[in-house]
């Protein structure tokens, strides 16, 4: 039966996927409950919106909205506290892992995630990132790496590629003076407190599905208490890259992915360990003091 009038979709907060909304109409896709109906402030073609949604879908599917606390520090995603329906905290630039640590230590039963960009996580918040990871804080970090500072208008990021032109590297990032990009997934995979690190992207349906799977696994890693988990999403910033969304995705495939290869960088369970702590113990097997059992 053909519809002549546009369907006003019902309140997604009440009607869920699979709900019958007309004689022959069933909702097959709806905004996740964990995502609010606030309008995103992201630019057209920005991948933040996709990743926000993936996080919300994972929260829905894991049934953890009521126990989740999200942390959004400074950057384009700073207003994520308006976009998610779980409890949210806005944090200072780079400090989300420390804030997440505070929340998680008070309420270990909560699921705590930080949603951070590259300037936030890999530059001003490097210390907080590295130390939350090495402490094995049972938190989940979603890391959006688009190789540029978006909110402030396109400055060079710690992950900007060599020769990448930005507002503060107008002649291209000169590695002799500005140094090299930071590969965060590789870096964090060396730390003992880390249970799971994967780098994904969202330039295609297949990659978006893989990204969601990784995000869900990262949350599950936290729920299971295995250790620190992080998903790095190689993302685009069409506005500050000065490209159309399509061209931005092509640039991402041509330049970003060779520098930041996708894949699992650490997965202690896949490596045959129960959790990060067990893997750490194995790595330190020749160190007597590290092998002492505190219960003794």
């Amino acid at each position, binding site marked *: 039966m053909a519809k002549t009038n546009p369907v006003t979709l019902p309140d997604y907060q009440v009607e869920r996927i699979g709900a019958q909304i007309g004689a022959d109409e069933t909702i097959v896709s709806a905004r996740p409950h964990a995502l609010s109906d606030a309008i995103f402030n992201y630019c057209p073609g920005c991948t933040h919106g996709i990743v926000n949604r993936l996080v919300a879908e994972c929260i829905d599917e894991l049934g953890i909205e009521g126990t989740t606390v999200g942390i959004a520090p400074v950057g384009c995603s700073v207003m994520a*506290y308006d976009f998610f*329906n779980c409890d949210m905290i806005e944090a200072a630039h780079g400090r989300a892992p420390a804030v997440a*640590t505070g929340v998680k230590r008070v309420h270990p039963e909560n699921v705590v995630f930080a949603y951070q960009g590259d300037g936030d996580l890999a530059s001003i918040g490097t210390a907080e990132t590295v130390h939350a990871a090495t402490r094995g804080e049972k938190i989940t970090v979603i890391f959006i790496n688009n190789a540029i500072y978006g909110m402030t208008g396109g400055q060079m990021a710690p992950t900007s590629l060599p020769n990448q032109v930005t507002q503060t590297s107008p002649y291209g990032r000169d590695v002799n003076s500005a140094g090299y990009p930071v590969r965060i997934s590789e870096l964090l995979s060396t730390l003992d407190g880390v249970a799971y690190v994967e780098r994904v992207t969202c330039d295609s349906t297949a990659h978006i599905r893989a990204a969601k799977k990784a995000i869900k696994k990262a949350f599950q890693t936290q729920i299971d208490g295995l250790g620190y988990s992080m998903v790095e999403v190689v993302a685009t910033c069409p506005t500050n890259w000065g490209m159309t969304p399509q061209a931005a995705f092509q640039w991402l495939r041509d330049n970003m992915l060779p520098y930041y290869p996708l894949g699992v960088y650490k997965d202690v369970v896949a490596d045959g360990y129960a959790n990060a702590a067990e893997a750490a113990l194995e790595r330190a097997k020749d160190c007597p003091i590290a092998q002492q059992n505190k219960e003794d």
Partner: protein
Amino acid sequence: MADNTKAAEERVLMKGNEVLAEAAMRAGCRFFFGYPITPQTELAAYMAKRLPKIGGTFLQAESEVAAINMVYGAGAAGARVMTSSSSPGVSLKSEGASYMAGADVPGVIVNVMRGGPGLGGIQPSQSDYFQATRALGHGDYFMPVLAPSTVQEMADLIYLAFDLADEYRTPTMILADGMIGQMMEPVSLPPARDPKTLPTKPWATAGHKGERAHNVINSLYLSPEKLEDTNRERFERYEKIRATQQRQELMMCDDAEIVVVAFGAASRIARTAVRDARAKGIKAGLLRPITLWPYPTDAIDKVIDNGAKRFLSVELNMGQMVEDVRLAVAGRASVDFYGRTGGVLPTPEEVLAQIEALAEGRPVAPSAGGSATGSVLPAPIDRKSSYERGE
């Protein structure tokens, strides 16, 4: 006499820094995030030993910056939480303190002051008075600042600090110094709070459990009007604090013509000097601010009403609180300053000499190379604004 014996039995000899830790736990604090620095070390060490035994969390953070942000997170999650540091470390905490104030997150920050600026020294100082009382970080805010002068007050004031922080949803500071932190004195510890009696925090971000709308802890307001409203609301709270929370000790101030104003370690020296001045027949008194913010301006009014003609601010710095004394005195009496800095403590004799100078109408000695501030009693000034005067 029986009561005295009983009280004596309950008193224990403890170090100031350790008392801060013990009394904080008794106030219901179960979370401590800090970073090592002299001279507050004993506080963190005591917490590290005790907190895990009572179901709490001690965490040595990677930096002061991280520590204060952990406090922000734990406070947002509804816990009684604290951090402690000393001057250079407190500078690093200023960012987080501003966010706590902006997002109305309670928490207690201890500063066991040492000399500055820069790395300064490790001896006692009061050189962070401005930093503490003029908002620790960026933005339009204040926070209650409590200044203990004895080990007993370390206990009493940190106990109070947690209540003030929760009641007014604000970071609250204990501004101690290396001398009070390091010294041992007998102390009666406050009773341990039953965690069930602590205030509930329906605003906390601890998961909505499907029982309420989501809570947001935030200090970002892109609408200027909304940010102004938020700041105005906060300043209404500050007015309540100003009206109800001024605390001070007055000693021999009923008929004092010369009032020495001093807090913390400096007040212990000033107390002796004032007694010595009285013994010499000088009508001196001591006004000891316990709250540095809100500043006890009502007490300044009172001693002026009682006949105070001259004020002498004695500090372990180059002259900071003296500005608050001048603001409170507002030209109704003369205000002088005497201070030592860098970790040097003045002797009671030094302070007495300044009181005697004031009594004889002579200028006080310059403070460590500075020139003497004007001690001539100024003419009464017209306190009306130009608008009120019709200009």
